[in-house]
């Protein structure tokens, strides 16, 4: 049973599902923030963690980084690097939420849209779940990767 459960939990197809989910999630989350950079800037500022001179820049860059990494996850290109970057961003988000939960800040997550429910511990758990999925992708993802499709042939050069 445990073996079966382990095989299921470590199966590449499960990693593929997580990969597509996380990739799509990040692309989706970034689409709104790209078009409303000023609102996203206020969201970032509401967390009161980034220096004021870097808030706007983060509001401009971060959605695009999310889109790039999400797209790479979906396409299966540099999966591990993209998963690592997404996991790092999720970790930063989770820490930020955690800190503001401790502060009791009356802010929303701002993960997808500007106006959302205030952050809560559920938000932290959700982000931890996403981090877990991302680490699963990092560790077990092996199917339907564009890298393997193209670079797999290159890997046989000289052998």
């Amino acid at each position, binding site marked *: 049973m445990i073996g079966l459960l382990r095989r299921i939990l470590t199966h590449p197809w499960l990693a593929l599902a997580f990969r597509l989910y996380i990739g799509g999630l990040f692309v989706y989350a970034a689409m709104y923030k*790209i*078009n*409303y*950079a*000023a609102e996203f*800037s*206020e969201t*970032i*500022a*509401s*967390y*009161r*963690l*980034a*220096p*004021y*001179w870097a*808030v*706007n*820049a983060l*509001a*401009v*860059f*971060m*959605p*695009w*980084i*999310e*889109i*790039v*990494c999400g797209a*790479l996850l979906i396409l299966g*290109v*540099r999966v*591990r*690097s*993209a*998963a*690592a*970057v997404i996991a790092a961003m999720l970790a930063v988000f989770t820490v930020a939420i955690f800190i503001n939960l401790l502060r*009791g*800040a*009356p*802010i929303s997550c701002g993960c997808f849209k500007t106006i959302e429910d205030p952050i809560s511990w559920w938000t932290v758990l959700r982000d931890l779940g996403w981090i877990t999925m991302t680490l699963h992708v*990092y560790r077990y993802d092996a199917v339907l990767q564009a*890298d393997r499709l193209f*670079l*797999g042939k*290159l*890997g046989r*050069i*000289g052998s």
Partner: protein
Amino acid sequence: MSSDRPTDPLSAGPGRTEGPAPESERRLFHLKTLFEAATELSDLTDTGSTLRRFLPVVMGPLGLTFGLGIVVGPDRVEVESLGLMPDDRKRCELAGVGLADRFFQDEPQTAPPPRPTMLTGPHLASDPSLPAGTSAVVAMRLDCDSRGLLILGPRLTKTPYSQDEIELIQGLTDILSTALKRACADERVQTLNASLSENNACLTQALGRMEQARDELDRQAFRLRTLYETSLELSSLNDPKAILDAFLLTLMGTFGFSRGWIGLHGPRAGQVDTAYRGPDPDEAEAVASDKGREKILARFVELKDRMPRANQTELLDDRKAVAALPARADTAVLFSLDQEWHGAIGLAEPLPDQGLHPQGVQFLRSLLGIFIVTLGNAWHGRQVRELNTALTVRNAELQATLDALTRAREEVTVQTEARERIVGLVRGEVARAWRASWLDAWVMILAGVVLGVLFNSASPGGIELVPKSLFAPPPALVAAHEARRMAEAGQAVLIDARPADFHRQEAIPGSVNLPKDLFDFVYSMKLASLDPETPLLVYGRTISRHYDADVARELELLGHQSVMVLKGGLQAWKRAGYEVTR
């Protein structure tokens, strides 16, 4: 030998006279006898004649019945007798040497010849070794090797010898001894002359042979010198054509020919070296032509078993074969360098008393030996030079090939290294694709930054990457206690610039929430009627946003003349212990 010579008339004197002769006559008679003996023996040159002449001379005056003379030499015994019976003579001949030894055995061999020794007496007549009736014996040493013995028989008168007669016998034997010595000397001289003549003849013959030997030696020396000089000359040359020319000249000069040629042909037509000396150039062309080659090779075929092998020569002795050669020749030689290169030598028109004599054939063979060896060496040297030249060309080609191969190998090495690097890069990239890398992460972040900047600059909803408040002049500040005093005195209005959620959570009592995103709406609702000169105290600053400065700047733009920012914000207010609403 015996002598029957008649008695000299002069000897018929006192022996035949009756009665005593006067002393003077007797002396005269003795002197005449001595003179006659000396005269008779003066011209004789051999012992036999001397004895034969002497016996009548001594027997006549003394009236003897017989006389016997013996000469014994190292290799002869000569006996002469007169009046002796044949048996006695034969016995004396047989006993000649013994008789001589009997009378001379005690004399030293090296002593000088003494005067004749005479023995007389009646005992001699009965001596068995002497003829019967012997009256006197005279022994004479002639020289170191020869001895003479004179035996006188009994007198007819049977009387003993008188003193005068003894002296006469002594004188006669002196003359005989002298004559015999001379005769011995003459015979020795004759013998020496004969020996000398014989030696002269031998010497003459030896001289003749020596002359012949010297001539032969001169010829041999000439030949050896010629061989030596030919060897030197030919060995100094390394070109086969030059060797042919030099050797032909040597042959013609050595054997006295006025015309000569040498042709050396190879396995294929046109491979030929020739040498020619003579008046007819056509002969040189005939030797060098293909037809000349065929004629020479035909002679080799004719020789069959005698055909010269490699480095051999063969003197042609068949006149027909010599005449069939491509050019005129009186003497011809075939030679071979190896299995493929054959040649012929022809010599013609010998000078008077010159040419190849039978005794010169061996010399010619010796010269040919030198010629074939030096020509073979030069030929092999030329082949070696040609091979060296070909080898040099081959080496150059090989070197060029090696250089090309080296360059190709270097190119292959470079390409291999490039391939290895490319493969390494590809493998590295492939491996990197499977793992997380800082490079990929930075590329993704950089791509996001670039896309974000580009999109933000092109988007109508773009924002400033760096807030303007960062470069704006600092606003006027007011301390917390002054702000509290002014607010409580009603002199100023407190404005909270933070978002509404923060204001609702915590704020200074009496403050008006004027967030920047709702500035126009809230201002028109709550502050539009406010006197522009009323001091406005703005607070609300976080690490991420200077809400107070932004709102203060907006208020100033609307004409408010006294807009100040609470120094330290809400935190300073709270640290001062002033009241806040929650």
